[in-house]
């Protein structure tokens, strides 16, 4: 039976990655009952994880997968193209989707009216469709299409937050995001004009023959700005803190670990596969620019985070800083640096998603994520708070957590490039992370809760489970690095090798 099934769908796995969530999203709308919709979404999300794992395994053992949609041959038809780079990103996106979904019912019960739940699941799956599509498509225009699918659905998700600030944040993100999307479309349009193709591989070949001209440079600039907005590279990050702060807790956890990561993937794809590194980073001083912005983001994000009273906002600024690390890794343009950037996609997704889920638990029980709500939480919600401490240690980069693995490669990359001041700056900004994490830890363990505070129960099991899967992940993947660092370094070798 399994063999029969395998013969039926074995080769269509890439397409299922997009088609399934799209289909189940509509199913959610039809079934309408919240728990049933949730079950449908769960089925789909965990199926996607299995699917992504199989794809990664196949790519690892047999090399790049090319899936031709509708049988139209490349470069005329649309291709789904999976190599080590996006197979890893796909696994991250689907896994985060699935794990967060476990915590969703209990968390949104508190934040979103029950009659809207089925719509929430439908939108969530649409967002997943968009993100998965962006990740695996081999077609430039498709990237834009899927980007818009994921963006529009994420605006809708963010606007579901409890306060009216959620609406303004969603609009702010919508305006910024649309600007970004427009820039990306412009860039792709210009490239199409110059090369006459939308297939990424074909486009890269044509560009190599064509050489540099002004249109290509402008296209590159447009793409850089557009993706930069979606990725929230400092100083294009202004939409991020509000969006993360006011969105429903699980939405923040989901988006923080996926949306910016996929944007980073698109940046890497264009920089290393389409334009080729020597053009993007050396020829235009793009490397120097990105490195400067990345470092500025590392410090600006961490410094602002230190002074936040709302912990959700604090973690949002921390994300700006962490994106800075990834950008610096890319800008180093050597094997270790790029490995650092890519492995940080994986590592930061696991860590930050775990931390935002901790906040989901806190907001559920305390109705607030202000620092004062954390008073005595070490005793009141011990499991939740212990998860925060471990996740925080990973952000700082303590050895045997995933944060250390990322930092190791990034510092190595910086030293490899002979840029020791960059190495020092990366480490110094980790010390800033120590400051903003520890002020919360201190309050959690040493500040007594107010006298008249009610008894608080530990977070519900479903939320603890998904939080601890991720926090456990920060420890497991901090020691067993074959999956994260192994694939990331192989992908980095492939990208750097494809260049020279």
């Amino acid at each position: 039976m399994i063999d029969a099934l395998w013969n039926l769908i074995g080769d269509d796995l890439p397409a299922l990655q997009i088609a399934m969530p799209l289909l189940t999203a509509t199913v959610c709308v039809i079934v309408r009952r919240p728990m049933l919709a949730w079950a449908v979404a769960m089925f789909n999300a965990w199926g996607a994880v299995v699917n992504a794992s199989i794809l990664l395994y196949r790519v690892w053992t047999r090399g790049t997968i090319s899936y031709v949609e509708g049988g139209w041959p490349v470069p005329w038809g649309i291709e789904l193209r999976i190599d080590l780079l996006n197979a890893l990103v796909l696994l991250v996106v689907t896994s985060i989707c699935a794990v967060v979904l476990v915590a969703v019912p209990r968390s949104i019960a508190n934040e979103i009216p029950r009659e809207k739940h089925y719509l929430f699941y439908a939108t969530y799956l649409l967002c997943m469709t968009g993100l998965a599509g962006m990740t695996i498509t081999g077609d430039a225009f498709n990237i834009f299409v899927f980007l818009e699918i994921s963006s529009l659905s994420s605006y809708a998700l963010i606007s579901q937050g409890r306060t009216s600030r959620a609406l303004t944040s969603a609009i702010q993100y919508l305006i910024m995001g649309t600007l970004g999307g427009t820039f990306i479309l412009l860039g792709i349009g210009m490239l199409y004009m110059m090369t006459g193709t939308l297939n990424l591989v074909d486009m890269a070949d044509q560009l190599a023959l064509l050489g540099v001209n002004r249109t290509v440079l402008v296209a590159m600039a447009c793409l850089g700005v557009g993706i930069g907005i979606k990725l929230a590279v400092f100083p294009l990050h202004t939409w991020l803190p509000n969006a993360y702060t006011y969105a429903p807790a699980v939405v923040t956890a989901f988006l923080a670990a996926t949306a910016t990561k996929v944007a980073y993937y698109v940046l890497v794809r264009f920089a290393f596969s389409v334009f080729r590194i020597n053009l993007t980073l050396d020829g235009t001083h793009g490397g120097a620019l990105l490195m400067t912005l990345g470092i500025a983001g590392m410090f600006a994000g961490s410094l602002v985070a230190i002074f936040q009273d709302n912990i959700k906002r604090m973690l949002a600024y921390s994300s700006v800083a962490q994106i800075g690390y990834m950008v610096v890794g890319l800008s180093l343009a050597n094997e270790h640096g790029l490995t650092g950037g890519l492995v940080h996609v994986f590592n930061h997704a696991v860590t930050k998603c775990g931390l935002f889920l901790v906040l989901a638990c806190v907001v559920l029980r305390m109705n607030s994520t202000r620092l004062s709500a954390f008073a005595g939480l070490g005793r009141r919600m011990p499991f939740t708070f212990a998860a925060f401490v471990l996740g925080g240690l990973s952000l700082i980069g303590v050895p045997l957590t995933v944060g250390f693995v990322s930092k190791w490669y990034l510092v190595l990359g910086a030293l490899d490039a002979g840029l020791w001041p960059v190495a020092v700056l990366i480490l110094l900004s980790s010390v800033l992370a120590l400051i903003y994490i520890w002020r919360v830890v201190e309050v959690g363990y040493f500040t007594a809760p107010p006298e008249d505070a009610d008894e608080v129960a530990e977070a519900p099991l479903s939320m603890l489970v998904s939080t601890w899967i991720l926090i456990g992940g920060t420890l497991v993947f901090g020691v067993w690095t074959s999956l994260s660092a192994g694939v990331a370094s192989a992908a980095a070798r492939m990208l750097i090798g494809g260049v020279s």
Partner: protein
Amino acid sequence: MTAATAVGLAVAWPLIAVVWITVFSKRPNLRETGILLTGGSLFAIVAGVILPEVQAGGRPRMDLLEVLPGLELAFEVEPLGMLFGLVASGLWIVTTFYSIGYMRGHHEENQTRFYICFALAISGALGVAFAANVFTLFVFYEFITLTTYPLVTHAGTEKARKAGRMYLGILMGTSIAFLLLALVWTWLATGTTDFRPGGILAGKVEGTQLMILLALYAFGTGKAALMPFHRWLPAAMVAPTPVSALLHAVAVVKAGVFTVLKVVFYVFGIDLLAFTDASRWLTWVAAFTIIAASCVALGKDNLKARLAYSTISQLSYIVLGAAFATTAGVMGGGMHIVMHAFGKITLFFCAGAIMVGAHKTEVSEMDGLGRRMPLTFGAFLLGSLSVIGLPPMGGSWSKWFLMLGAAEAEQWVMMLVLMASSLLSIGYLMPVVVRGFFRPAPVEDGHGDHGSSGFHEAPLLCVLPPVATALGGIVLFFYAGDIWQLLTGMVP
């Protein structure tokens, strides 16, 4: 049991105590018996199984796993680590006895958490002692920092919180900013972080870079308390006295100087340093720390603060020994780890006993106290002699070998520094003893319920441990040769 398995077992052994403490947290007697049994069996493993193997020239090794290419978690015991492991595990037993007396006598809260973190810190110290490479050492180094943080902030007061901030800020800050950088640099230059006799850096890193790398290691090891990164140690004195005694006089701080010794000997190699003179500057930093910290100690009235600054000064003896880049210097430094451990733990035990028995913390309040607490003050006298470096205490030998190291390196100024430091330590330690024994006790204002005559020692469990470690100091005077013998195994 082979020595190799025993190594991994020893590092994990204190975790048994952790489980035991958690299970029997509500039954103090059972809880603490368990800790004592774990401590005793741990020492038996370290001294009974691993030590003979190392003495015979073996290097029991245990590989755990490779975290990243070339970054391996692994243990390997060589003489220096053997010595540190013996000291940490042996003194844990004594300290546990003392903790029982102190924590109960002082009515401390959260004793379960205290004992758990304590056991974890010991596990971390053994991990540092037995680490086979810089990476493993770094992992356990950070582990110690994190597990001792709850001990420093044990009281939970605002003062403890501030101290904790300083503790974590300096220790973790320096280790991330400098030590991790040094680790990455070492790996990049050599492709390994293994400790190897003769070092791994020769021919890989040269000139000024060698000095910078050494600086990253020396200052990155904040636990070695080199100035200007020493402030965390006095701050940590807010912790209960057993913590100050074992961790902030032995396990934690010695993990720091041990790291410096180990890196100098097994990563740089003393030949390389002696040849390039790259560690000359470090002797001056260490000398400055020795003298400056002693001078600060002279002015401290709080006994624990005075002892803390004395520790800072004494730790730099060991750094100095490493910086000489001579065999005698490194071995003298290794020996000083042991000798100072026994001396200083005695002094801290006594400070705690005085706190529990007489509720006094300031030196100026201790007039005449020696006649009421003769055992405590007698032990304090012996401990002081050891720290000063006078016979018949073990401390005299380590100072002798450090002098020898200075002579071998032809650094005559440093010999003067060592002598001056001895004089200074007489200056800050002896007044305590003199006040205790020879000054008359202040006239009690009416409600004194016990006269100045008659004994009033702290509970027995607080008094016997310092007496034991003080006597241990005398024993070490006679057995210093064996330690020397063990350390000579370092030189191939």
